[in-house]
């Protein structure tokens, strides 16, 4: 990853020294907005990291600092405003990696790791049950079983596969694929976690094993077009799997991109919908992957919809609080961040909030319910399925 002007992350030490401590990052940091202490600001964390790694070679690492490094959603908003163009998201990942290597990772992270190594997914369920959600389909779908050489492979992701609320996303996507007569398959029980929770916890080597497995299986299936509905899985496939994919021809598309192609290609006809719709940019899809237009194009192509933007949108979009393993170490802050975003949703007067990330939808749905707002939270695939003729 690079920031503005193509600047790449060099080393933690060099980047920490480059930080000017200007504090611009405070404005955009969702964690600082809810915690409020200087140590929760990106500049505060970098200041401590600089002292720790340029002067003390990692000695004197404190529990407080470990906690602050973990209190980050990896939303990348701080990099957007950084006056010295530091890829701060990479900085947080690097810090977590070093902390993990020093054996000081938070307990919650170790629990994530043990579970993933045992089950290959983020839940306690067996990975063989990855297609349980498909039982809610009207009929058995042959395409869900591993199929060599399918035109498209749909990578479901752990949350959508195992959590009932989120499983509405694969249900909608499969239904759309079926109606659009797409030749597709899934990786079934051979799909492992994308590896992001391990990456985000600092266990980079373990994450590499998960990536390696998924890439190998995909190659076995002779798949050359992958559709991913989880923005974080998408980000891993698009950016962190490139070494394993070197020399292999694979097009990786987020579901919004693929669905947009179906809509614009005339493979889907849309009914009218008379609602006020707003859209929340997931950080890993928008700011961290640059996909802003596809979901919007889908929404505005629905006849009758009045589309309204949130106050902070696209590159300036606010995080939902659900990223970066934050919930595993500080669920209260994660919920607080979702409440801030919910205030903006309220301002729009929208009756439907659309996003394209199961995690954002879960976080915002809870916050919207808690706030007593009459706003339906939908994934873009659910919205599309609802208006399909």
């Amino acid at each position: 990853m690079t920031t503005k002007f193509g600047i790449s992350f060099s080393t933690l030490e060099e980047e920490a020294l480059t930080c000017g401590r200007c504090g611009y990052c405070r404005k955009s940091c969702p964690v600082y907005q809810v915690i409020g202490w200087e140590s929760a600001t990106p500049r505060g964390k970098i200041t401590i990291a600089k002292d720790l790694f340029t002067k003390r070679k990692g000695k004197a690492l404190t529990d407080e600092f470990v906690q602050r490094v973990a209190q980050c959603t990896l939303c990348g908003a701080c990099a957007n405003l950084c006056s010295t163009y530091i890829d701060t998201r990479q900085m947080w990942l690097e810090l977590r990696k070093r902390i993990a290597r020093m054996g000081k990772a938070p307990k919650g992270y170790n629990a994530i790791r043990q579970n993933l190594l045992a089950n290959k997914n983020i839940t306690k369920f067996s990975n063989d049950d990855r297609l349980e959600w498909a039982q809610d389909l009207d009929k058995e779908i042959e395409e869900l079983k591993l199929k060599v050489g399918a035109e498209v492979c749909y990578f479901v992701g752990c949350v959508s596969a195992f959590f009932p609320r989120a499983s509405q996303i694969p249900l909608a996507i499969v239904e759309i694929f079926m109606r659009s007569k797409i030749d597709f398959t899934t990786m079934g029980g051979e799909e492992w976690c994308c590896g992001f929770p391990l990456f985000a916890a600092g266990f980079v080597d373990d994450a590499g094993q998960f990536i390696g497995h998924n890439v190998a299986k995909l190659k076995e299936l002779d798949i050359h077009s992958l559709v991913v509905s989880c923005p974080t899985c998408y980000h891993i496939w698009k950016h962190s799997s490139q070494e394993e994919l070197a020399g292999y021809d694979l097009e990786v598309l987020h579901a919004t991109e693929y669905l947009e192609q179906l809509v614009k290609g005339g493979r889907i006809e849309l009914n009218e919908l008379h609602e006020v719709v707003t859209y929340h940019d997931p950080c890993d899809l928008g700011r961290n992957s640059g996909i802003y237009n596809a979901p919007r194009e889908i929404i505005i192509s629905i006849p009758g919809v009045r589309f309204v933007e949130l106050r902070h949108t696209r590159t300036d979009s606010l995080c939902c609080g659900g990223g970066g393993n934050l919930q595993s170490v500080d669920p209260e802050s994660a919920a607080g961040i979702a409440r801030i975003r919910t205030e903006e949703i309220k301002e729009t007067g929208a009756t439907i909030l659309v996003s394209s990330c199961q995690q954002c939808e879960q976080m915002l749905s809870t916050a919207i319910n808690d706030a007593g707002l009459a706003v339906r939270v939908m994934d873009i695939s659910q919205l599309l399925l609802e208006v399909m003729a």
Partner: protein
Amino acid sequence: MRREALQQIKQKYGNRATDSRFECSLYSRDLASIPAFIVNPLFNTMPDLVVRPTSAEEVAEILKVVYTSDIPVTPRAGASTAYFGSIPIKGGVVIDLNLINGVVGLSETEMTVTTKAGTTWSDLDEYLNSKGFSSKSFPSSAPVATVGGWFCMKGYGIGSLKYGSLLSQVKAIEVVLPGGEIRRFFRDSEPPLDWFFASEGTLGVITEVELEVRKLNPMKHFLMPCPDVSEMAKILAAVKDAKIPPYNLHFADQQCVRRLHKLGFSPGQIEAGCLLAIDYEGTVEELTQAQEIMAALIMDHPKMGPLPEETAKTEWTEKFMALRLKRGGPSILGGEVWLPIRELVGYLADIQKMAARYNLEVLSYGHVVTPQHATIMTFFYADEKRTVDYILNFGLIKKIYDVGSRHCGYPYGVGLWNTPYIGRIFSPLRLADLRKRKKKLDPKGLMNPGKVYRWPFMMNPLHFGLAMGILAGLARLIGRGGRR
């Protein structure tokens, strides 16, 4: 009694107060990177307690407790200067004002906005823009600088050339005085609000500001490459004195332009010469006149054709990113000088002579903030990992200020590190007057002690000058001035 008072605040404010060493250590820093072994023997920069009030009433409550117990207080908001202006030097309580934020109200008829002092200029402008208005001026660190913070500084920045200093735009302020009394001050109150302007948090805590706003107008941007400083100065003079003043007028010298190019940040890929950014805002008629002024100017200087407007617009959108030059570091050292514009050419020439003497790459950029004055940031690269060299280089900061002084300039802002220069910054009469104000409003001297009025003993101009002279001499002798 001191411990009891601190405990009382800690208990009252719960998770909005902390005495954790981990947390407090971050409140002993600002932008300046100065080794602890230099700072710690001289000052106690570690707060005993940091508290985050949400209102003027809470600030008043805190001040009443600490003032009675003779505990020093340091207000802090964005902490975006490098002079230790918001860093305690005698421990005590730091009041973090960032929670006192948000717009109180906009009067479209009066063309004023009332805002809590901890609101950042970017947030204020975001609010005003959504209503069709804008701040008349703002600092070049608007994403972090707060309204109250900039009022406590000198208050000149982007927009000042057209609309004057922040002081001229402020109609009223709410201040919590050191003893805890909440007062509202106006231009004609007793004392007037200007007592608190540029007082750097030494007279009380500003909690609310009412200031004038302008209509949000369209803009027109120009970016002129100039072959050298003297040509740039001619254009600059012609532009600033024209019938329509620019909203913003900033410049970069040859060294700055070269370095921007080297780092890949150069607007328009300009490799040599100077750059002058000229930004107008106003009605369509005003912008038409501005366009005519620029067209005439370009006719008179055919070799200095402006860069494409899109490039000029990009330069405008990057206006808060001056620190990107730090990428050439890792560290930078330097100073900001308040300089008469008539001295600009001489100042920049003498800076380069100094740079040659010390084998340094010295860069300068600045903003024209009044028809007569500019603020100029002059700096050089350093490497704080090379501790000895880094400390020797401190002596060269004084050399920059000395060049400024020879050209009737002085440091912009005092804080702690510029107290040795207060004899240059203020006339004796002005300084005596400021000290009287301080004595009247803060007789115990507990509000942000050690700043503005007097230099701490170890930093008296004689000792300070001698020490800096030795450091600069050694830097020159050893020839490790920098990374030229």
